[in-house]
């Protein structure tokens, strides 16, 4: 990989073009199991997306007047943003706290975060009835500044820009553009600081979106602390995603890694497990505080109450213990199991608030249509395809070229 780059003379445009064309060709097996599974689903998904624009949202989704936000918002956006929280947490640890130990996984996390945001906003556009009017929010003729969604949207948009700047040195290294690299590295510190700020606000803002739905969300899930709970849970949700995704990409892209980075990975996992355990402890304490403060004990002895206990005990308390033991025993397998349980728990929590316990008393329950599932899978698969394309070409997991000072 690095030899390919060093052969290229960036000053000659013709060579540059050749380089780009050669890089566009697929690297790796075409008929891998992942490709064979994902490709047909993506084709069906794209057809469904076409039908959605041809016949309207109602033709492919089970959304109703009672449940205006379904899987595309509840999972793709509300859950997906929490999963992408790892980027701002790791950036904070490496670039602000100077914990250099985590630097080897920083770029892949930032890239994951950026792609996640890019594709979630694409999913959001699919769900908008009049997507062209999204321009009203951007160009400023109709700013609804009292709207939580407006503020979330702007923080979301600016954060995508910040992530792009944070990742851009890797693109410059791939293109062997040294001057550009110096410039991009110089401005990335600003992106780091504002990126973290923007993240804290839009992570909490997604919780704040549901504040006005006071009478519609079951009282065990609705409370005025939703913004705080969302931002705290995004910390361990994001890190669990980093652990989960890291354990997969380290297997798939193991040829990209320097041997010493392989060794570092276990120590990184232990450190991340500790942060997750602590984050979940804080989150659990907050949940208990809210539970007592809102006098929610009256709701516990009911089906919804049991469901709440499943979420809190099975998917917060249990993975917290798992992370704690994983950290104490340096057990990386346990870390990975805990990360998966945590991710399921976050999915459960976000879907509970946005779908399952939203209008829990409605006569007709919303169950997503198969088309909604396929489109969601399609978006995830396209994202993975793009991620794979970038990781195989740019210095994301493998080390930066020699001309970059201090490694990446």
């Amino acid at each position, binding site marked *: 990989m690095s030899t390919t780059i060093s052969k290229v003379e960036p000053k000659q445009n013709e060579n540059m073009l050749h380089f780009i064309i050669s890089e566009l060709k697929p690297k790796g097996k075409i008929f891998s199991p992942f490709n064979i599974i994902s490709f047909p689903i993506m084709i069906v998904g794209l057809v469904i997306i076409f039908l959605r624009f041809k016949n309207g949202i109602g033709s492919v989704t089970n959304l109703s007047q009672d449940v205006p936000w379904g899987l595309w918002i509840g999972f793709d956006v509300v859950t997906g943003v929490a999963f992408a929280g790892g980027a701002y947490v790791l950036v904070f640890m490496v670039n*602000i706290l100077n914990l250099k130990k985590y630097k080897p996984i920083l770029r892949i996390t930032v890239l994951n975060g950026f792609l996640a945001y890019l594709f979630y906003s694409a999913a959001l556009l699919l769900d908008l009835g009049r997507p062209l009017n999204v321009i009203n929010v951007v160009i400023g003729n109709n700013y609804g500044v009292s709207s939580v969604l*407006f503020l979330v949207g702007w923080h979301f948009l600016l954060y995508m820009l910040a992530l792009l700047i944070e990742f851009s040195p890797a693109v410059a290294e791939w293109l062997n553009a040294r001057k550009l690299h110096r410039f991009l590295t110089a401005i990335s510190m600003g992106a780091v600081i504002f990126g973290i700020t923007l993240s804290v606000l839009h992570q909490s803002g997604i919780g704040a979106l549901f504040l006005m739905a006071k009478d519609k969300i079951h009282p065990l899930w609705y409370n005025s602390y939703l913004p705080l709970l969302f931002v705290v849970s995004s910390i361990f949700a994001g890190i669990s995603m980093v652990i989960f995704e890291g354990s997969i990409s380290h297997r798939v892209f193991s040829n990209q890694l320097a041997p010493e980075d392989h060794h570092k990975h276990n120590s990184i996992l232990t450190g991340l497990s500790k942060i997750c355990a602590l984050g979940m402890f804080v989150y659990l304490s907050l949940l208990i505080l809210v539970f007592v403060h809102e006098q929610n004990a009256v709701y516990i002895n009911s089906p919804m109450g049991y469901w709440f206990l499943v979420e809190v005990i099975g998917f917060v308390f249990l993975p917290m213990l798992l992370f704690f033991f994983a950290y104490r025993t340096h057990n990386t397998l346990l870390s990975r199991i805990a990360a998966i349980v945590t991710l399921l728990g976050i999915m459960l929590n976000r879907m509970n608030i946005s779908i399952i316990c939203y209008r829990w008393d409605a006569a007709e329950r919303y169950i997503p249509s198969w088309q909604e599932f396929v489109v969601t899978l399609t978006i995830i698969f396209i994202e993975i395809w793009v991620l794979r394309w970038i990781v195989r070409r740019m210095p994301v997991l493998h080390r930066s070229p020699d001309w970059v000072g201090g490694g990446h």
Partner: protein
Amino acid sequence: MGATAVALSFGKQTAANNATVSETELNGILYDITRCKGCHGCEYDCADAHGFTDIDIPKNPPFRRTDEKHRTVVNHYETSQGKLPRKTQCMHCNQPACDAACLTQAMHKTPEGPVIWREDKCMGCRYCMISCPFDIPKFEYESTNPRIVKCDMCIDLINQGEIPACAYNCPEEALIYGKRSELIREARKRIHDEPEKYVDHIYGEHEAGGTSWLYLSPVPFDEIGFNTKIQNSSYPALTKGFISSIAPVDILLPAVLLGIYEATKTSANKEEEL
């Protein structure tokens, strides 16, 4: 921090807008259920006024809800005083949740009282539907260029100096249109004059921070399908704390982060240490 700058620069203007929408200026409609015969006439008038032609109301209608083709419906409820009708439509809150939720100002509380939806601004995100405590905004799911449909209190007629179609045509004068403050006085007078005929409550006077539609009922409001769990403070107030904390966080957090960064910078040289 574009959003903060915007929030700060627009802050004054928003405050000014709120000041103009003062309660005394708002128009509203008083609906006296004791006078309503449940003839469904207002449903036909509403459909006429908004260009819906294929309206069809079954003879013994089951419970119905407003939807993208029916901006208002009348349902009949079994109550402690026999069968009673009740008209449902947008309440036109004084401080509407849908207006506060809308990020493009498509949902808009006009100074005259009606809460209207503006086609050229809406991006179809349906956050108004999530936020509305009365579940009023409806969405045209089957359309490729869907609209949000809800009662607009016949804003076009009001702007021409006329009154909303349902109130104009009601044969029993169960619906009266006027200044909200005067309607509240009239409602109080009716309760005072005939206390045995009404429950001592004007639904909409305080619900959700006050609404332009006001209801008088002979039976407790929960018996005729009203949501009595509605809070008396406005729904946008629920997000006020969060929104006002955004600007300080946007300004202060970067400073704190920069401080931490500078404080930990000294160890930057010992990079390879684990």
